[in-house]
């Protein structure tokens, strides 16, 4: 099957932008995973869903609200009570999760086309994201591996801290181009690289 078409269109302009001197404050990338899937547990079945994610994706989710884990190619984190976003660079994760989750325990929803994944990394990632989101991005409040559900005005977003200075953002596809444009605008002050 053909690759998905990016929603960013002409707004995606590779190269260095904004403040020109020194190291780029942030690097912005569209990571284009093959699978973005929501696994949701009915009340009381959270453990079973966590086990199913382990089985289907090989990711061991830590306990706790917003807990998560990331590898080079996969990621999972809590986005709401009993709900997890599971991401894989390759396709087919939704089917594997469906096979691992009993209909009485939870539901699998494929969002691979519905969400756009944007990576913000670099020394000023927290500074740039703090312009858009009213959440505490400090590592003490938002540790490595954790996920957060939040919004920038009309744009809902899931944030996942996948490295000390790296955040993967998942936004609604239809709003991705606008969001990307705002992100670039916010990053101009520190200089940014689009890759």
């Amino acid at each position: 099957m053909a690759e998905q078409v990016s929603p960013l269109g002409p707004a995606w302009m590779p190269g260095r932008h904004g403040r020109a001197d020194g190291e780029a404050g942030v690097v912005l990338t569209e990571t284009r995973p093959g699978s973005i899937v929501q696994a949701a547990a009915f009340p009381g079945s959270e453990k079973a869903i966590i086990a199913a994610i382990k089985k289907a994706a090989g990711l061991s989710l830590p306990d706790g609200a917003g807990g998560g884990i990331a590898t080079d190619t996969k990621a999972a984190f809590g986005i709401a009570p009993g709900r997890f976003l599971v991401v894989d660079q390759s396709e087919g994760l939704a089917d594997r999760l469906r096979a691992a989750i009993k209909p009485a325990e939870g539901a699998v929803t494929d969002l691979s086309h519905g969400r756009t994944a944007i990576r913000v990394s670099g020394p000023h990632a927290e500074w740039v994201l703090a312009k858009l989101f009213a959440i505490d991005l400090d590592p003490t409040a938002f540790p490595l591996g954790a996920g957060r559900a939040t919004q920038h005005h009309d744009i809902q977003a899931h944030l996942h801290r996948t490295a000390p200075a790296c955040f993967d953002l998942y936004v609604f596809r239809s709003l991705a181009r606008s969001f990307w444009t705002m992100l670039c605008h916010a990053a101009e002050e520190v200089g940014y690289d689009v890759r």
Partner: protein
Amino acid sequence: MSGSRAATGGRIDRTSSIAFSFDGKTFHGYAGDTLASALLANGVSTLGRSFKYHRPRGLLAAGIDEPNALVTVLRGDVREPNVPATQIEIFDGLTVESQNRFPSLDLDVGAMNQIAGKLLSAGFYYKTFMGPVAGPLKGTRFWMFCERFIRRAAGLGRAGKTADTARYEKMNAFCDVLVVGGGPAGLMAAKAAAAGGGRVILADLDPEFGGALKWSSETIDGEPSRTFVDHTVSALEDAANVRLLPRTTVWGYYDGNTLAALERVGDHKRDAPKGEPRHRHWVIRAGRVVLATGAFERPIVFPGNDRPGIMLADAAARYAVEYGALPGRKIVVFANNDGAYVSAVALRQAGADIVAIIDVRRSVSDHARKLATRAGGELLLGHAVVDTPGGSRFAGAKVQPFDAAAGTLFGTARTIPGDCLAVSGGWSPAIHLASQAGAQARWDDRLQTFLPPDPGQSWSGAGAFLGRFSTAEAIADGIEAGGGSSDLPAVDDEAPDLAPAPVFEIRPAGGKGSKAFVDFQHDVTAEDVRLAHREGFVSVEHLKRYTTLGMATDQGRTSNVPGLAIMAGARGMAIPDVGTTRFRPPFSPVSIGALAAERFGDLKPHRLTPMHDWHVEEGATMVAAGLWHRPMIYGHPGETIEQAYVREAEAVRGSVGIVDVSTLGKIMVQGPDAAAFLDRVYTGMFSTLPVGKARYGLMLREDGFAFDDGTTWRLSETDFLMTTTTANAGKVMQHLEYLLDIAWPDLKVVLTSVTDQWAGAAIAGPDARKVLEACVTGTGVDDAALPFMGIVHGEIDGVPVMICRLSFSGELAYEVYCGAGHGQQVWDALLEAGKPFAMVPYGLEALGTLRIEKGHVTGSEIDGRTTARDLHLGWMLSRKKPFVGSAMMDREGLVADDRLQLVGLVALDNRPLKGGAHLVDHADRALRDSIGHVTSVCFSPAVGKYIALALVKGGKARHGTRAFISDPIRRRYGAVEIVSHHFFDPDGSRMHG
């Protein structure tokens, strides 16, 4: 000229000369100067004209409390009015003009208002301009005629009409401790808090930290206070857990310890680096807050107290010490407390002569006497300034013996010449933020001022904010409020006692003499306060509102307490019994742009479908539908809108068309109880829907009115795909989530918005099936495989698709859904397959035309005021089960005969109908008795006429009758026939074909 540059001193960089323009004239100052200090050093004494009487005014203060010297900063055609000159850091090329004067600052015709001074007393406008009861100026016209002149005379600066292109930004911050104010208390609080390891933010409104230590002559731990500040600041700069925010005014204290601050990032720069905002709007969520906001000196009210050259004593000292700008060479000091003596010494040390110190108190402390000796000049105790003879600037003080206890003058007056009068009437702590955070301030009799209330939120105070005015107290308080331990630096100088004598106004017997101003910015005089008293406006709020005292841009920093004191005197009450006003955000004015942040200008969220770029390239006229952008028409060159949509609609009825329906709201409803859930939220039954079929559903609100409609597809036993209208997607989702969380938490159902997951294309028209047959693989699409309301899964161009046969247009039609990332690919394949059938893309106008012809309703008809029955959807209301709204839908008001009901209209004059037109049942054009209104209109190619849907009183009963358009707004009148809303193919044979 009175002001001048001192030979040495100040924290200015005398090697860096800066040229700026004021009222078109070029001046020079130094790096580190404010506009105020630079103009003062250049001998400029009049910086503005007062609000009402247009009196010349000079600098009163040196900080944010400045009421007089408001100017407009120009950046090209962009104007920033009403900026205190004390807050502007000069830079090369700074261009500023003065305000509220015509034609010039020195010659202002508005000053004639002074002649009518007594007429323009407080509240004069309420008592006149009521005008004649008849004639050409009756009603409100006479007032409006006069008002025009009043409006022109009032107002301060002029705002610009040219768009501001500067960048503004918002920044979210979180910290354990926010310290507001970077004076000695704040610096020590930040240091102590940082030592505790928490995240600390220290904000100060000045460009440099230090507060009053920047112009203090004290020594701390043996170092000059300014050196102490430098050391402390550099230690804070080095601490990883401290963020320093200079030029940042914390202006709002909101709920949950959320504070708002304005950082003036670029105001002092000629050119901003790329991407840097001019202002940054900080929203700081703090674990706790240390308020170290200091105090404002207040003036004494006396006749002639507004003449340029009359200045607060501490401000005079600040100009001299911090900026090396002497406000005068022969300075007269007028005080009711010891603080002014310290200022006098500082002024003397900076190079000015102190001519005299006039103190209302008959005796003063030894410390004050010592300071007076150091300052030099005559010490006149038990005296008061009773007037300031002279022209447009201060030339001398008329003084007279004064009995402070009785508040009376006696003996003979004499005039002491000088070129500057430094006044101190006591100090008012800056309790504004604490007041915003809730609770009433409390009066302190010793300090004759309001002190902060008990904390309503998590804050603590330190230093002058608490009325603890000495540097030593500030340092000790700061360390304690910071919460850590720190060495206690010792202050080596004796602190003056700032407790003033309770003297707020000097009032010559019989009220003789010049005007005595309480509120400089709004020109409120002591007599105005007394007039308010005479007229019964005695509560503090009435006083404020009747006289406008304290309501100007300085928010009464210098005027509140003196005003209250005068009212208290008139009422024979103590000041706290008169009350204090509650301070409201912002503490100091904040640019509208900063609060708008990125939400004006070009950055606006748009929702785009996967096929958006194709629509635009194809020349579609796009229209906004909420955040979505949708094609309205795909116009050909030379076509009108009507020609375009008629062509598109005819193509659908004649052969086939394709429309992007990706914007429809889509919600996955999943779980073992999904079917039961849908039975409860829809008026119809969904548990009986077989897998692989779709059903049209209607939702009501709890109050029984119609809410939203759409089709829901059963994809498996436990999975449903619900569609909603584009406009209501979010509201429906929220409605369902509410019910699931609150009404029926026992149901095992998961709701997920999948609007963006799917690209949708509807193929409609007699040839629709042929188009699908040409491109769909993996499934049949014939009537047997895909009956009406059936769903199949297949592929188009190798992309998995889901196809449901349903119709909005009334034609044979299908909705084809695929993953949004493949939307364009499938769309292209469908277009290719449609070529042999001359398939056309159609937009919202044609879509609307097709549905109006079928009598289908949308948001224009389901407008939140109509019922299912009003819209002839009563057949959808199941009687077999309760559902949301079922208990309320039969109430008398919802079933009344005279309700507006859906009907069709056909124009009898062959002219276009328009939405929003009303209908009447009389042919004359008299504006009365509307019977309803037009909701949706089109030219119907199927009917061959202009038709419309309308909501009309008692609708169905009027079928076949004539009514008349009454659209006086657009001057459209004419006859229509009321018909059924089913204009076309009422039995639905085409879509079932």
